[in-house]
């Protein structure tokens, strides 16, 4: 089973991906699976344990279940302030 998700990138991930956003048909069931798939493809340097993940603008567990149309954002270590 696959689903369409929208992925947004910020900071160092946006630079490594070369774009701020993409839509994607994926077989990944969880954000963790999705990140591994994308990291393999684009060579992201960050390990998931240094990231957090948000789905539809809420923080979410890495092993939660993705649904059709979800907006997924991987969050590199923050540096505000």
């Amino acid at each position: 089973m696959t689903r369409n998700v929208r992925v947004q990138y910020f900071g160092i991930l946006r630079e490594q991906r070369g774009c701020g956003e993409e839509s994607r048909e994926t077989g990944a069931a969880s954000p963790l699976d999705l990140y591994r798939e994308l990291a393999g493809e684009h060579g992201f340097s960050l390990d998931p344990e240094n990231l957090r993940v948000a789905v539809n603008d809420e923080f979410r567990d890495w092993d939660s279940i993705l649904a059709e149309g979800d907006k997924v954002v991987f969050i590199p270590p923050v540096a505000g302030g």
Partner: protein
Amino acid sequence: MNRFTLSEKPLFAETLLAEAATPRAGAYVTFEGWVRDHNEGREVLSLEYEAYEALAVKEGNAILCEALDRFEVLSAQCAHRLGRLEVGNVAVIVAVTAEHRDAAFDACRYIIDEVKARVPIWKKEYYTDGESEWVNCPRCAAHAHRHHNHAHDHAHPRTAR
């Protein structure tokens, strides 16, 4: 009263003051983060802040609510700058009112610590040698992670005081 805002334009503390004033308040504590001319031994020329705006505002307001909840304060606000900043520019302002100064200091400190650790804002530093780098603080990353895994443990490891 609580309000977390993001702004592409310069920040001025006076803006927050207007919202903070109330006859019940006896103490007003503000923290401003300024762009320093150096960081980790490198000479900084300018920097750029980028935010995941929807979640940043949500998380920022959650932090302000926590502060109102935990400390005897009357108002708590935070404004964070986005975009390109030069040395000396104001990156962030936290403003807190309370009847007494204990609570105002403690809440202001809590808010800036949590904002730095949890709000999805990223900083790219541009150095005088022409290089640039996305900055991240491993301690903050560790804290954010812990916060995420244990939603009820908000304690933040402070540096030596």
